[in-house]
């Protein structure tokens, strides 16, 4: 039988074995889907980007032409949601603020053309993000209104836009989806190599070594099966992310393929390393779980690594999952990276992890063989 036919035969056999195992379906497909959906529902805001809204009330103690025009201008600001169509008296506004029925009350000047515009907030909320945002918006509005009243055209204006080559902005849904994809592919590799412990324990490895089969081919076919599984994971999670939660994809296929290929190999190599020193399935699972948990929360899967405390950042910068998540985002939502050095540095570090893990694993296997009885 030719080598390629032999690999095909082994591939089909291992593919059947993998997909006939219910636990594989649960842990590699069903569980990541559930986890992703859950995270998206909690943090993703159902896909409409988590727009900022503030509920406010307006007090106009001395209605006049100028205060009316101020009011009309304020009511056009889209992030403000008005508690009532008409201005209310200050007692009513105070009551609403106290009861937190509104985030803030805006009080217009008491005498005509000039004076202070007051912002009243609950003391408890004095320094929270909503208050600061309202303050900022109002401050800007007041400044513009003053310039207009004085007839001055401002020399500078601030225009903000985020930079990505993707046509749309990166939303939290995109972020979570790519994070979950990377995580589940990484976990499939990390946990999947438990097969190595299983075939050693059951004696199947020994049995196969009694045949003329080259074990390298068996391993190669096994890797092919793992690639298939991880490909299914990517497609499944992407489809659910895009259709169910309106995630946006900006694919860069070469980048995606490189990141995927190197990532799958690296995490399988890590699994292989764990299998080399695990004597039982339980001990393998224990080590794999710890490894996966340590990486999961500090590698930018669920939230950006920039939000982590400074002392933790160096740890993040050595973990392979950080670079795998980055690489997958480059290929799936940033749509960039093939010529960026940060992408290649990340892939390089990931590859380094893979090569190191595989080499150490192989060494332990070779040493251990002497003691096998």
């Amino acid at each position, binding site marked *: *039988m030719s080598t390629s*036919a*032999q690999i095909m*035969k*082994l591939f089909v*056999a291992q593919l*059947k*074995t993998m997909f*006939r*195992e219910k636990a594989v379906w649960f842990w590699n497909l069903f569980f990541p889907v559930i986890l992703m959906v859950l995270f998206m529902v909690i943090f993703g805001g159902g896909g409409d980007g988590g727009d900022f809204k503030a509920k406010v009330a307006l007090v106009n103690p001395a209605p006049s032409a100028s205060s009316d025009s101020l009011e009309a201008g304020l009511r056009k600001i889209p992030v403000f949601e008005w508690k009532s169509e008409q201005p209310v008296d200050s007692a009513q506004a105070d009551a609403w603020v106290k009861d937190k029925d509104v985030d803030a009350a805006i009080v217009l000047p008491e005498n005509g053309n000039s004076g202070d515009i007051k912002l009243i907030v609950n003391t408890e909320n004095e320094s929270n993000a909503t208050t600061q945002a309202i303050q900022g918006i109002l401050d800007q509005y007041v400044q513009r209104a003053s310039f207009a009243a004085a007839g001055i055209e401002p020399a500078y204006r601030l225009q903000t836009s985020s930079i990505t080559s993707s046509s749309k902005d990166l939303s939290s849904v995109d972020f979570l989806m790519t994070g979950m994809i990377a995580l589940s592919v990484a976990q499939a590799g990390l946990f999947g190599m438990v097969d190595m412990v299983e*075939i050693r324990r*059951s*004696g*199947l*490895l*020994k*049995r196969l*070594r*009694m*045949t*003329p*089969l080259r074990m390298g081919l068996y391993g190669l076919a096994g890797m092919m099966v793992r690639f298939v599984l991880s490909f299914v994971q990517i497609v499944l999670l992407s489809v659910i992310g895009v259709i169910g939660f309106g995630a946006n994809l900006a694919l860069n296929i070469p980048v995606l393929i490189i990141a995927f290929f190197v990532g799958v190999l690296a995490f399988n190599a890590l699994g292989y390393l764990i299998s080399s020193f695990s004597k039982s399935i339980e001990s393998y699972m224990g080590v794999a779980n710890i490894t996966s948990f340590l990486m999961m929360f500090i590698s930018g899967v669920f939230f950006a690594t920039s939000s982590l405390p400074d002392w933790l950042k160096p740890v993040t910068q050595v973990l392979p999952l950080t670079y795998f998540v980055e690489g997958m985002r480059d290929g799936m939502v940033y749509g960039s990276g093939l010529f960026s050095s940060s992408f290649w540095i990340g892939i390089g570090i990931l590859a380094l992890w893979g090569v190191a893990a595989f080499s150490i694993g192989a060494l332990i296997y070779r040493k251990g063989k002497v003691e096998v*009885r």
Partner: protein
Amino acid sequence: MPVLEVKNLRKSFGDVKAVQDISFTVEAGEVFTIIGPNGAGKTTTLEIIEGLQPPDAGSIAVAGLSWSKDESAIKTLIGVQPQSSALFDLLTTEENLDLFASFYPTRKSTAEVLEMINLTEHRSKRVKSLSGGQRQRLAIGLAMINDPQVIFLDEPTTGLDPQARRNIWDIILRLKQLGTTIILTTHYMEEAEKLSDRVCIVDQGTVISLDTPAALIGKLTKEREVRLSFYDGEDAAAQTEEALRGLPGIARMEREGANVTLWSPEPEQALYGLLGFTKEHGYRVEHVSIREMSLEDVFIAFTGKEWRD
């Protein structure tokens, strides 16, 4: 040329000398059985022969080939059923056979093997749902899928019920008919006696005795045990005992009530004398028996151990 030649094999694990100078030769078409108490070195010997472990000293030749030079050639010539049968549990019987067949340049047809191991009906069943006996038959099927010259069966019937054991005996006898050389280890003396051309008794890493089952038993049997009991009670038994005492061919004698037991190197002679006497006196003998000596007695005599320790 012998199919298998084992010369001066030695192997230690730390302080434990598992195999100390084991040598034997197996001819083509033989069923060669290795028996010995647990820890005697059977499995280690077998694993060295199967190429799974290197010996510390000594040599193995399978069909004239050596492991160091012709590893892959030997692997195509042998078939192995290891003690714990490891199979692809989530594949079906047929898928297991096909997959293993793909590892070899020559093969038997899956249908033929399925028929020989009597699993044709269960060809599409996943291994996981097979019974212990069926699994074991499949493991033997996998060992014969490459149409090997030598097949190694390591305790193929351990833990099986009597019916399942008989099924496996049938397979072994079929293989023998087809001219396959079989190296067998077993815990059951009855099995070794029934199936083997030659039996090799191993204890503490050395060969204690090696011969055909009949010759091994013959070596041991200097005296046979004869038992008889009388309808006419103790008196008849006592008188017979008295009369027989001192007759040639009877080594010693014991009586307990109406039962007499005697040991004789020539039980036939002893029985003539015995039955002549009872006929003369009109004593009715209820029961006469000569105990068969079995391989088990041989084993106990050679190793000084109970079989199942």
